[in-house]
């Protein structure tokens, strides 16, 4: 019974993360594959964390256009960044500037 509840909770969490909408305490995941951020447009609450999972065989970065943060995401690895400021942030990969994403950070 307990296991069942736990797996349901995990399923729900995965579902919410998949929608690109943040949940308190959970990282919102952005996958990188074939030189693209997916989802490319996400919304998180202030204080939440965005996690990038790089499935490519080359390193990437998630670099905020306004210079607020610059995250290295090595090939086959993941990296994360806490979103503290409310607003809309465009980011790109410094090595492959055609890779572009947007993060909307909203009030809790």
């Amino acid at each position, binding site marked *: 019974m307990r296991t069942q509840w736990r797996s349901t909770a995990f399923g729900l969490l995965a579902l919410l993360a998949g929608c690109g909408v943040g949940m308190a305490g959970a990282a919102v995941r952005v996958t990188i594959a*074939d*030189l693209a951020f997916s989802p490319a447009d996400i919304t998180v609450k202030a204080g939440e964390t965005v996690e990038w999972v790089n499935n490519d*065989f*080359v*390193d990437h970065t998630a670099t905020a256009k306004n210079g607020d943060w610059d995250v290295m995401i090595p*090939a086959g690895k993941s990296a994360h960044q806490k979103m503290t400021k409310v607003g809309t942030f465009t980011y790109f*990969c*410094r*090595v*492959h*500037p*055609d*890779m572009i994403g947007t993060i909307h950070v909203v009030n809790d």
Partner: protein
Amino acid sequence: MLRIHLHSHALGLAAAFMLAGATMPVNAADAPTDPQIAHIAYTAGAIDIEAAKQALKISKDAHVRAFANDMVRDHQAVNDKALALVKKLHVTPEDNDTSKALTKQADAERAKLAKLSGAAFDKAYVDNEVAFHKTVDDALSTTLIPSSSNAELKKLLQTGLKIFEGHLKHAEHLASTLK
């Protein structure tokens, strides 16, 4: 006959490499073979790594050095993938006139750059990176990708093209900041 066709094609492709922006018509009869394509793509990557290593020896500009480091890392990753793939497919990369022309031209360019230093070197290196990536991207999209017959090789070249298009954009941006 086939040999003559291949020879003339390889020369044509070599000419395309030497004239940035030129395009090559793709003709099924004289398209390069997979072993030749693999060799051309690998050679182009190796050339860019050498150019970046020269930049890391000479340049003192932080942005130019960061770009050169990116080139070494990315092109090495692509070439490692290419080597693993040809091994898996039991394909032996085949030297050809295009690879030879590429290497010859790159040797001449490196010798030219070796005489420069400071801002003059940085500008020449980055301008050459713009021209080189334009030529390689063009050759990939007009000749190498359409001519490749193995699906895995084609996919790797397509991913390579996306990576190198990113390099071109990065190089163009860097070039616009150098005087």
